[in-house]
């Protein structure tokens, strides 16, 4: 009887340690939680772009595009800020089209056009300035 209870207690102790390791309060997960928390962020706040690009930033901040993060078009900037890697410069219709091509499901009050009907194969930046508040008689978008 004592042996049986002892064995049972041992089994239970093993079970409890497992529950401790795997439960919500276990230290094992604490280490892994730290691992996840310590990863480096790649997207930075747009305000970090301001120090080196003040005029572009000022134009952007006054334009309709001020809600569009710089890195949506130029790629994550963390490495660029550390002196590694160049930001993307992309002028394709496709890039503008992600937001502005006419698409079923897009809220009707959001500015959108059929790109090729509107501009043929011309790049959008021929007429529109993505950073500037005003451009060539067009609205600053």
């Amino acid at each position, binding site marked *: 009887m004592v042996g049986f209870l002892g064995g049972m207690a041992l089994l239970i102790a093993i079970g*409890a340690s497992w529950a401790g390791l795997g439960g*919500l309060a*276990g230290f094992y997960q604490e280490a892994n939680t730290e691992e996840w*928390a310590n*990863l480096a962020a*790649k997207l930075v706040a747009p305000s970090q772009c301001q120090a080196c690009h003040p005029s572009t930033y000022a134009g952007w901040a006054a334009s309709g595009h001020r809600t569009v993060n710089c890195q*949506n078009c130029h790629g*994550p900037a963390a490495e660029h800020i550390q002196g590694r890697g160049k930001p993307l410069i992309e002028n394709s219709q496709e890039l503008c089209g992600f*937001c502005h091509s*006419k698409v079923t499901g897009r809220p009707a009050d959001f500015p959108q056009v059929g790109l090729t009907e509107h501009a043929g194969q011309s790049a959008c930046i021929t007429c529109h300035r993505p950073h500037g508040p005003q451009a060539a008689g067009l609205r600053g978008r």
Partner: protein
Amino acid sequence: MPRGLSRRDFIKAGAGGLALASLGLGGFIASAKETSPDKAEARIRNRPGEADADWAFVVDVDKCIGCGRCVLACKLENRVPLDPLLNRTWVERYVVTRDREVHIDSPGAGVNGFPRLPGATLGEPQILKAFFVPKLCNQCENPPCVSVCPVNATYKTRDGIILIDQGRCIGCRYCIIACPYGARYFLPDAPVTPSGHARVVDKCTWCYHRITKGLNPACVEACPVGARLFGNLRDDQGVVAGLLKEKAVNVLKPALGTKPRVYYLGLGHWVQ
């Protein structure tokens, strides 16, 4: 059963053992709490202006334009493979036709936006309603994916985020099946995770490395129209706390009892 032990004695012994177990378990957890430095929790407590963390995510369906910048930002921030089937977050388009049929598409998870119409057979006159629904891990309060993991690789942090210890994951994929929201995916052979693990499960962490530093998740940072919002409900002045207080919100599949922490504004009954 040992000889000479009646069924009643056996059950009694079992009950005694159970009592012993609960004592042992309680003691173990208590000692773990005392001995391990609670850095994750401490850091959150120490964040300026916030006493503690009760994270919540709000998705405003009426605002989403389906540009997919969130999907791309997530992939770049978290080294998610560019494979269109492997995603931590994605955008679905729901097109309801006049015959009340629901057509759902999500080409490449929406990473390159959407075509004008979901298919060649659907024309604009047939469409009653169309809208986009961004999806991501719901960080359920009651997560089925955690319950099924046979090796305790996936777990809930004290601040309620479901994470995976990818060094412990054996790649059995039970959790992928268990998640009712399809929020988990299997990483392929190439070691693409920040920790270099391959053939393990990966999922959205709400950018745990960002939110614990006081930053927004990458998808929230990338959203140009404010369709994705993130905040700490302990911060009474926060936008997310305010929205939950004032607006009617819905969660996905509420009947399952998973208690999601992603709250949707303007979610129609068409959405699954």
